[in-house]
């Protein structure tokens, strides 16, 4: 199967997953105790006001009717309006999703940039002090709660040293990168530890492969042996792992975005759950599902590019 038809087939496979996710999240939000209207109007609202707005929002209709309307809005390519913010969910997502994409993208790049060279050093110095030092340092990153890391990064690099701004997102693309540096770093630390561990193990395994000896026997420079022969093979399993981590990365983004005041979808999701903003939760879940599926697909394609044996 060629790459294009593989891609198409994979995208088709995603459809039932989306339908399932749609149903699960639709039901899930409705079994949450307390509804959006009471959450929105707060303690002071009268019962009449709550009833009236519930009716306006169509939340008094039977659940199947509500589900049907939900499907209708999705079929229109719409996701309904936010109950709390009174604007289209699509617009909220369009404002917020790029922020999270940039944050997680930067975090991934940082994580890879940190993990790949150090995993190599650790692997080739296996069980000697550089290896132990690198593993120890990454273990600290892996074992630290992300909000704790964020707080310390903020206090030191933004609060005390004024090297970076204290959170926020800025206005221009350059400012975005500058503002997201620390949050991306906080998010990258545990992620890079995961990559480092996996890559170190793969490199150690690949280093003992015969083709590495053969490459050395050919008289190739060490740089070429490691860069061309070892890295590429070791990356195959690590790429899959990086893809699978997208879920954890988005989970981490929830906390990071709160600590660093980054206006992304992670925070929007938590806020919406706490506000019982059904349309936003539903729309956002589907949007994130699309995102995650695309990331999985992209990792598959990268793996195909890296490994000619995966002839799917």
């Amino acid at each position, binding site marked *: 199967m060629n790459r294009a038809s593989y891609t198409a087939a994979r995208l088709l496979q995603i459809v039932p997953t989306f339908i399932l996710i749609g149903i699960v999240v639709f039901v899930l939000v409705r079994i949450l105790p307390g509804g959006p209207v009471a959450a929105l109007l707060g303690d002071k609202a009268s019962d009449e006001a709550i009833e009236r707005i519930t009716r306006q929002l169509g939340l008094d209709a039977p659940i199947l009717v509500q589900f049907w309307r939900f499907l209708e809005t999705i079929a229109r390519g719409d996701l309904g309006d936010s109950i709390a913010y009174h604007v289209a969910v699509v617009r909220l997502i369009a404002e917020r999703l790029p922020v999270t994409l940039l944050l997680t993208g930067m975090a991934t790049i940082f994580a890879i940039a940190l993990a790949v060279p150090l995993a190599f050093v650790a692997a080739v110095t296996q069980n000697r002090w550089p290896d132990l030092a690198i593993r120890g340092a990454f273990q600290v990153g892996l074992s630290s709660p992300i909000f704790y890391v964020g707080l310390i990064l903020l206090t030191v690099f933004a609060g005390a040293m004024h090297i970076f701004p204290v959170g926020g997102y800025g206005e221009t693309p350059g400012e975005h990168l500058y503002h997201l540096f620390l949050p991306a770093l906080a998010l990258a630390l545990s992620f890079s530890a995961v990559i480092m561990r996996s890559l170190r193990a793969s490199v150690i395994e690949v280093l*003992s*492969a*015969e*083709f590495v*000896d*053969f*490459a*050395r*026997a*050919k*008289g*190739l*420079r*060490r740089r*070429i042996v490691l860069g*061309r*022969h070892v890295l*590429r*093979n070791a990356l*195959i399993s690590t790429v899959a792992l990086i893809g699978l981590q997208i879920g954890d990365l988005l989970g981490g983004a929830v906390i990071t975005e709160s600590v660093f005041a980054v206006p992304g979808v992670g925070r929007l999701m938590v806020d919406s759950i706490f506000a019982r903003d059904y349309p936003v939760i539903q729309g956002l879940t589907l949007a994130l599902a699309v995102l995650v599926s695309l990331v999985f697909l992209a990792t598959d394609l990268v793996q195909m590019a*890296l*490994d*000619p*044996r995966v002839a799917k």
Partner: protein
Amino acid sequence: MTPAPILTISGLSVSFATPHGIVRAVDGLDLAIGAGEVLGLVGESGSGKSVTLRAVLRLLRRNAAITGRIDWRGQELLTAPERRLRDVRGGEIAMIFQEPMTALNPVLSIGLQIEETLAAHTDLGAAGRRRRAIELLSRVGIASAAARLDDYPHQFSGGMRQRVMIAIALAGAPKLLLADEPTTALDVTIQDQILKLLRELAGDLGMAMVLVTHDLGIVAETCDRVAVMYAGRICEAGPVASVFAAPRHAYTLALLRSVPSGGPARQPLDPIPGQPPRADRPIVGCPFAPRCGFATGACRTTRPPLEAVTPDRVAACFEAARLPAWREAA
């Protein structure tokens, strides 16, 4: 008379530090290879054949401790700087491995894997390297070579892969080819083709070759000289015909008796009793003594030196004189 040696190994010892102690793989090995000569290196698995070959190019793991001397055309390889060693590897001494599926990088096209050797050892440009790669592939018998340059190892059959590896080894125009059991993983019919190819290439290119194998039949068919290894040492070395006809080491004799040989005059098989010595304990005397029917007291207490028994043969056996002749070599 043997031609002047291009590679002389003397007193080579290799041991590995493992979690379970020090393991000795090669134990004071002496060996010489003449220019253009095809030498068969035989011995049971674990006797140190592959380790010896890898030691020549310093391809052993970090936990290996190597002592001795390896003299390559007047140059000491064990102490040579990395940069010099790179020129030797692939350019002067090439090596091929037993299992081409694992020795070829699965994710790189074979074209690239040939061209990178060319890039390391020749001044050819990109187009020149590609042309040369096609020539090499054709030379080792791969049909429509140009079309297959961009293929990956998994797209070739076992025999074809071994041909690819040979082509890669030839790319640097080496003076010596170290072939580590190159046919073990192949079907018998393919084995013959590959061996023929190797023999032919060595002759055509004037290239010396060390052929590691445990198959005495292959040695008989392919090699000029043979060296027999046991427990990390050379027991005996000399021209194939004379060694096979009249072994001067008890182990050589036992080995010859234990393997089936093709041909009509089949003799009953006589497996060697006992086990090779443990590699993590020191060996006193001749390592083969515990399994040897000819062993005497001296064999158990004194290490027999490797000495010339005829002008072109060496052996390390106190009881060489008592050994019977075996049979006419093929």
